[in-house]
């Protein structure tokens, strides 16, 4: 690895690079991270203190958002967080093999998810519990993956929410292809157009498939929003181990717009995603959104973040909690009263109880399930293998 002194500066430079002083490693990291304080290009509509800030470009994308809509966004985030915490607890109690926490990313996902229309297709990674929620998928439908009974049981055609993807980044190309199909079918070009959104992390941006996805979507003008949740960490590796340039700036190299939004600000995320989807459905080609956010829990329940990150960092991000800032805003503008917050809390508790109950009663998957649907058409070799095994199993009275 090159020494920090030779690292390139994250900001594009004017003039010949050779004459410019090389930045220090600290400067590089500062360039990637200082935006947590806002950063010149971070789109934010709600400050961490819950103050509404004006944004001449993006205000209009949320001009129609009523007090009730705000309450619904709040409710979404609280319920999704509650489901996430419950699932995390279920894993700790041995009910799930593993869980992938969402904590801290609620605004990024609810903002992006609520910007989609039912006709818009979503290709998730594996932490998109909030996007799933906005696509009408009940959190209990996610449990089978983590309990080990299935690989996701929802109808991805009907919900327009593709199965979770565990391999980092390769769903990005699948989404590019799907969006190309939307364009080939003439489903773009006006306000009724369709679009696709693909979700991936900052770590994924180092994968070849993500780069190829940028290339393909660009050259085919695919109506695809690349939604990168930069939660600062890829397991233990910080963003600066993936890039020397703020991620949204990469889009420029592929010839389409890139934008960084405060991913802990549900309103800003909603506005920016609506803008991006709108550009796509009108046939203007892809957009990259970098939602600048933070994973406030472990990568998964098998991870130990105390080995790689400082508690100071976590404490600093807790002050930017996406749910709290909307709550403060709702209270300050008297758009919600205690009865509302109580009812949301009651709904959240009921959801958690439902999830827990469902988890306890999931039962064992039937053995033949693993042989099912491997092929769409009959496969005599596999059929024979299944029949042999089922007969063998039956010979133990089904007890083996």
């Amino acid at each position, binding site marked *: 690895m090159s020494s920090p002194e030779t690292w390139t500066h994250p900001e594009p430079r004017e003039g010949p690079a050779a004459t410019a002083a090389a930045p220090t490693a600290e400067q590089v990291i500062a360039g990637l991270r200082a935006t947590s304080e806002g950063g010149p290009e971070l789109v934010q509509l709600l400050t961490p203190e819950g103050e509404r800030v004006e944004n001449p470009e993006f205000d209009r994308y949320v001009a129609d958002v009523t007090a009730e809509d705000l309450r619904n966004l709040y409710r979404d985030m609280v319920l999704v967080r509650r489901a996430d915490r419950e699932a995390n607890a279920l894993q700790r109690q041995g009910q799930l093999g593993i869980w992938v926490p969402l904590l801290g990313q609620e605004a990024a996902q609810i903002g992006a998810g609520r910007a989609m229309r039912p006709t818009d297709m979503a290709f998730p990674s594996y932490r998109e519990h909030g996007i799933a929620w906005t696509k009408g998928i009940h959190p209990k439908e996610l449990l089978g993956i983590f309990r080990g009974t299935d690989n996701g049981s929802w*109808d991805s*055609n009907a919900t327009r929410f593709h199965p979770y993807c565990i391999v980092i980044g390769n769903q990005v*190309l699948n989404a590019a*292809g799907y969006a190309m199909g939307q364009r080939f079918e003439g489903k773009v070009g006006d306000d009724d157009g369709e679009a696709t959104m693909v979700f991936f992390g900052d770590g994924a941006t180092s994968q070849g498939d993500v780069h190829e996805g940028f*290339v*393909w979507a660009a050259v085919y003008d695919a109506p695809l929003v690349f939604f990168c949740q930069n939660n600062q960490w890829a397991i233990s590796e910080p963003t600066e181990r993936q890039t020397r340039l703020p991620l949204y700036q990469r889009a420029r190299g592929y010839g389409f717009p890139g934008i960084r939004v405060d991913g802990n600000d549900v309103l800003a995320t909603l506005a920016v995603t609506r803008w991006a989807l709108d550009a796509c459905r009108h046939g203007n080609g892809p957009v990259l959104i970098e939602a600048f956010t933070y994973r406030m829990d472990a990568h998964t329940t098998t991870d130990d973040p105390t080995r790689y990150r400082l508690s100071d960092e976590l404490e600093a991000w807790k002050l930017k909690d996406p749910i709290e800032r909307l709550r403060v805003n709702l209270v300050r503008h008297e758009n919600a009263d205690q009865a509302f917050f109580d009812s949301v809390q009651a709904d959240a508790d009921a959801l958690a109880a439902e999830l827990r109950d469902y988890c306890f009663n999931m039962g064992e998957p039937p053995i033949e399930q693993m042989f099912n649907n491997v092929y*769409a058409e009959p496969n005599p070799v596999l059929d024979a293998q299944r029949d042999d095994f089922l007969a063998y199993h039956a010979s133990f009275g089904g007890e083996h």
Partner: protein
Amino acid sequence: MAAPAINKPGTDSAGNTVQSLTLGKALNLGLRAAMEADPKVLMMGEDVGKLGGVFRITDGLQKDFGEHRVLDTPLSESGIIGTAVGLAVRGFRPVCEIQFDGFIFPGFDQIVSQVAKLHARTQGRVKMPLVIRVPFGGGIGAVEHHSESPESYFAHTAGLKVVSCSNAVDAYWMIQQAIQCDDPVLFFEPKRYYHSANMKAEVDTDATPMPLFQSRVLRQGTTATVVAYGPSVKVAMDAATAAQEEGKSLEVIDLRTLSPLDLAPVYDSVRRTGRLVVVSESPSEASLTSEIAAKVQQECFYSLEAPVLRVNGFDVPYPPAKLEEHFLPDLDRVLDAVDRSLAW
């Protein structure tokens, strides 16, 4: 759409349309027929449009079907296959061309992680009707990465179907059947025979083809059975002709389907001949030929007069062109294996 520019076909005594075609031209006509039959069929790959592919197999298709159905793609194998997955989810039937066998590996992850698994992962809700065409095998004097036989990697993966054609008639039908198949098909084409004039065959485009996932007995015999696929089929047939002169009668079977393997005709044959030689250009270690040997000894143990013998490429990287004649199974190596079997 302009009328397709195809040779004026002739007609046989039964009134059927017959044309004498090379394997490459048969594939081209098969692809054309599939595109005409279903507007959701797309061709995609590097140089498949204007150039017609480096082997010209997609020649003329972009001219007649347009740039939205025949895509000159970016140079990106994972991209070709990965976007084909999304297009298939959307209801298209993409036919991907990989330029050469040795270049399929950048797309390997997409094939084994997405293409192969999506149907099962979605409980059958999402179908993957895509075809990946791979010109494969050696014998064309090419540089590295242009002569490989990677089919065993894919036969090893559940959820994929793998086939290989060996002649023009099969090429014409099998490519259309692969495109109609609702499962993903890896379609291996013996590139060294694409344009061989002496491999031309009469293709009856009105005929009823045999099913895609069945092997075929090409030549009946009693002394020993020889099984092959793709480019090795011709080698096996030539060996059988030579053996005939020595008074040995070889039964030759073209597997055609590599996954699922249709070994019933092979078992049947081995039970009669008692001897089996399997021929393939791929290295032998942990290959399809290993699988065939294992299954045949399991099914035909009491009929076998000799162990199953394999004639493969060696377990080495594909050698430089000046050495490939030693690497590739040829008629003499097949005959030698038959002799060893008989000497047991």
